[in-house]
């Protein structure tokens, strides 16, 4: 949920134009995994800013806690111990959360008008008051990010602090990150910074260092610098070629004109019905039933 409303690029399940009077710069959050010390300050800052609190859990034999994203934990650190080279241990710690795709699968999948929006700055935001709790966005997300709340049947995820960004601030996780592993700025600046980081990593022996900015979803507004960009899956299952699922593509792609046609037919049918039969009247009996149900 956000303060923004004047600079929306697109909205879920909406055919009318979106407000676009204000144009904002495209933003990007860069997570440099090679600088991350796994301190979880970003997890704390996220909960503090958004005033959410997860339950106090248990230890499950790993450092990860909470163990997964939840409707209250919109970001978590994921820890992977790997020996990619014989005898050379690496502890790869990745901050997981919404990637804010340029082509958001959640938005495409969402049938609730205006429940998912994409601002012109690239942030993909959920407007929970419009959410119908169907969970299609969860199916539509190639990164398995949104989480459905049992309390209110709404779906929650990282907003990239769209409220802070709208007011000219950086996201809370960026503000708190002690090592500068998470940085935020214009897309252009961040890509340049990421490229510099890759040069540094290559000079330190990471021949396959690179940027994770997957094109299968049109690029993302959260990108990673990875030591092993050739093997994103070693970072606790970061997908190699994420894309929007075929069902969502079908529903919003090929099927959409058909659906629109169907919708038009319904409208035409209704008009025909009105012309030929007159307006529908609700009988007093049915109205009473409604009242009783209330």
């Amino acid at each position, binding site marked *: 949920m956000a303060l923004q409303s004047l600079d929306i690029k697109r909205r879920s399940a909406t055919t009318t134009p979106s407000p676009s009077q204000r144009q904002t710069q495209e933003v990007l959050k860069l997570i440099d995994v090679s600088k991350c*010390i796994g*301190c*979880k300050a970003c997890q704390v800052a996220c909960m503090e800013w958004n005033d959410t609190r997860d339950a106090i859990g248990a*230890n499950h*034999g790993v*450092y990860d806690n909470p163990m997964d994203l939840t409707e209250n934990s919109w970001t978590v650190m994921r820890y992977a111990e790997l020996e990619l080279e014989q005898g050379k241990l690496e502890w790869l710690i990745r901050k997981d959360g919404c990637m804010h795709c340029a082509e958001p699968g959640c938005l495409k999948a969402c049938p609730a008008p205006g429940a998912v929006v994409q601002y012109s700055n690239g942030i993909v935001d959920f407007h929970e008051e419009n959410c119908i709790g169907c969970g299609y966005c969860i199916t539509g997300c190639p990164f398995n990010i949104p989480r459905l709340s049992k309390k209110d049947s709404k779906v929650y995820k990282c907003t990239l602090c769209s409220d802070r960004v709208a007011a000219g601030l950086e996201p809370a996780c960026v503000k708190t990150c*002690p*090592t*500068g592993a998470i940085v935020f700025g214009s897309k252009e600046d961040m890509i340049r910074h990421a490229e510099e980081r890759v040069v540094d990593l290559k*000079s330190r022996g990471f021949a396959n260092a690179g940027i994770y900015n997957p094109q299968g979803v049109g690029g993302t507004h959260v990108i990673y610098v990875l030591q092993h960009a050739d093997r994103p899956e070693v970072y606790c299952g970061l997908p190699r070629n994420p894309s929007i699922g075929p069902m969502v593509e079908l529903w919003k792609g090929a099927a959409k004109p058909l659906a629109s046609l169907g919708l038009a037919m319904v409208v035409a049918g209704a008009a025909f019905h009105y012309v030929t039969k007159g307006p529908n009247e609700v009988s007093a009996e049915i109205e009473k039933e409604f009242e009783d149900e209330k």
Partner: protein
Amino acid sequence: MTNHWVDIKNANVILVMGGNAAEAHPCGFKWVTEAKAHNHATFIVVDPRFTRSAAVADLYAPLRTGSDIAFLGGVINYLLTHDKIQHEYVKAYTNASFIVAEGYKFDDGLFSGYDEAARKYDKSTWAYEIGPDAFARVDETLQHPRCVLQLLKQHYSRYTPEMVSNICGTARDTFLKVCEHIATTSAPNRTLTIMYALGWTQHTVGSQMIRTAAMMQLLLGNMGMAGGGMNALRGHSNIQGLTDLGLLSDLLPGYLTMPREQESDYQGYIDKRALKPLRPGQMSYWQNYGKFHVSLMKSWFGDAATKENNWCFDWLPKLDKVYDVLQVFELMHQGKLNGYFCQGFNPLASFPNKAKIDVALAKLKYLVVIDPLATETSCFWEHHGDFNNVDPARIRTEVIRLPSTCFAEENGSLTNSGRWLQWHYKGAEPPGEAKPDADIIAGIFLKLRELYKKEGGAFPDPILNLTWNYMIPHTPSAEELAREFNGKALADLTDPKDPTKVVLTKGQQLDGFAQLRDDGSTACGCWLYSGAWTEKGNMMARRDNSDPSGLGNTINWAFAWPANRRVLYNRASCDPAGKPWDQKRKLIGWDGSKWSGADIPDFKPDSAPSDGMNPFIMLPEGVGRLFALDKMAEGPFPEHYEPFETPIDTNPLHPKVISNPAARVFKGDMEGFGKSKEYPYAATTYRLTEHFHFWTKHTRLSAIMQPEQFVEISEELAKEKGIKAGDQVKVWSSRGFIKAVVVVTKRIKPLQVNGRIVHHVGIPLHWGFKGIAKRGYLANILTPFVGDANTQTPEFKSFLVNIEKA
């Protein structure tokens, strides 16, 4: 820190050893990231565990807990045998050329003068040879068989890469790779910074571990340099302030020392500390000891302190021994100490062998706890199952809890690791009945003074005459206390060079400790902090971050002790002729008439290089000590001794002397140490980034991040023991047991040590029986009651345990 946090960005090589900066000091760690990103620094971590620091290191070397002196001694040997020392620096600025007295000896693990029965050394042979001119003798050619450099070479010749590997369990190749990186910084234009913390201090040879590293830095010419130094990372935001203000039992403020039992004569007390130069032309700054001491007494006792009564010297307690925390709890345990004030401290959780602490606390008549939280100590009498298995009905101690504020609820200064005093402002009102610590202490003091006034008593003088000029006596403000430790003129002060010129008028705040006098005309609560609140105002509140040199010194940001100097010993950043070793990291330089530059000179500002004054002005010889004389309890050169609970039952260097021969061990504790047969695994306790000590288990967000107690073991040990990640395990030492979830990890590896496999068990320590995180066991149930031979800091980092699936 000899340097400061920001300065780490200037380093070429960063060694984190005996600490875990990323995890325990994540905010300061940003400067490591900065050095890597913009100074192309190489970052090395040496630790028994692959920590979150190691996760971002260029090179990681494992070593067995407690074997750091062997490792660093091996580096010293490497530097000497590969000729990778900064020759000019070593010759001019260390005591390498000094000749050691005849009679000094090191043989089979013991230095000359050992008294086995007393577990102490007669240190008289650990000395320089003194010439007829009363100065120490030196051999500029460094060839004399008894000169420090030759003795040093001889001492560390035993620390070969093979020996290091055998003691530490570090692979030879990995060790040599670390040596190579460190050795690159012997070039005058490259520096190594060392960041350490409790991973060095909490051993029975902790002080000597730190010394070994400091000696290495002297050999490399890295002391006094931007991007160099020995950098102790302090764990609590103001623990540096605590030590500076003398809150240790044998210290007075500003590292002045308490007189000992035999020191009943005032002049003798001063003379022993006001050391005369040991070489011609040296400053030996402690010659000013008397000025600091008299000004302190004037600050405390005002007009009552006079020349005639030796500035109230007789009022100071005379120590028969050091009353460190282990000694105090030993006395309590013996029933000889029966009242205890516990302020901002949680001894039940923080001191070793919890069972012993439990018994000790139960012998008290009263216990006063001043703390913002309901600590375990304040609830030591409550029964909490296995977590705190005591019988409240049998405990008679009266516990009085006085709730205090936390740092965010008061104004004041915090002294960070880099010696910066930074002023902060109250952010919130304290809850309920909580009061600032100063108010609580003031309340107790005023009541005591009233009682002494009314009833007299055996020795009322120091209480009745203590200076107490606060505007509201029950509420001394942080501002008033700060002005007091800065000090003021008690009479008009004139310029020593021109007596007609008045520098400060009576009552004005001092500009710094250079103005202190020993004639009673100045008062100063802590000479080191003088300059923090001058006539110009609160220097600690300054927030000008301009940095013209780009070295990060920002000398108009807050105030750094001493005298706002940012890098200690910075005279050593220049060659003897006064030219910086490296122009790119010029801290100061001789401009023909004075020393000046990006930092405040840690030196006599107008002493020309030709005067021959050396950079280590606090030492009577003016140079850094590779040979420590009689300053350390267990020897002038650091030697590897095993932890008191060793997993290898021997010391490969000298099997007859296994552990620190000069460490104090109380009766009953020695017999109680575990042996490897019953307790085969090397255990170490530590902190996690998600928590701060035993406090943050009281806060929900930290509890969410690490909710439950766990221990860590290697995959190999887990397999051997049939343990899986997430299982409950029982870990026990000869003192007790804990139960916790187990994390099975690749980050702890079995090490090959002296012909056997040594497994580590890692024990994070943040849980207890109070707070909102899941309840757990205090880790100090397991740890041994023995400390470093010099500081008595307990050996929390190396002991023995056993482990089984619960």
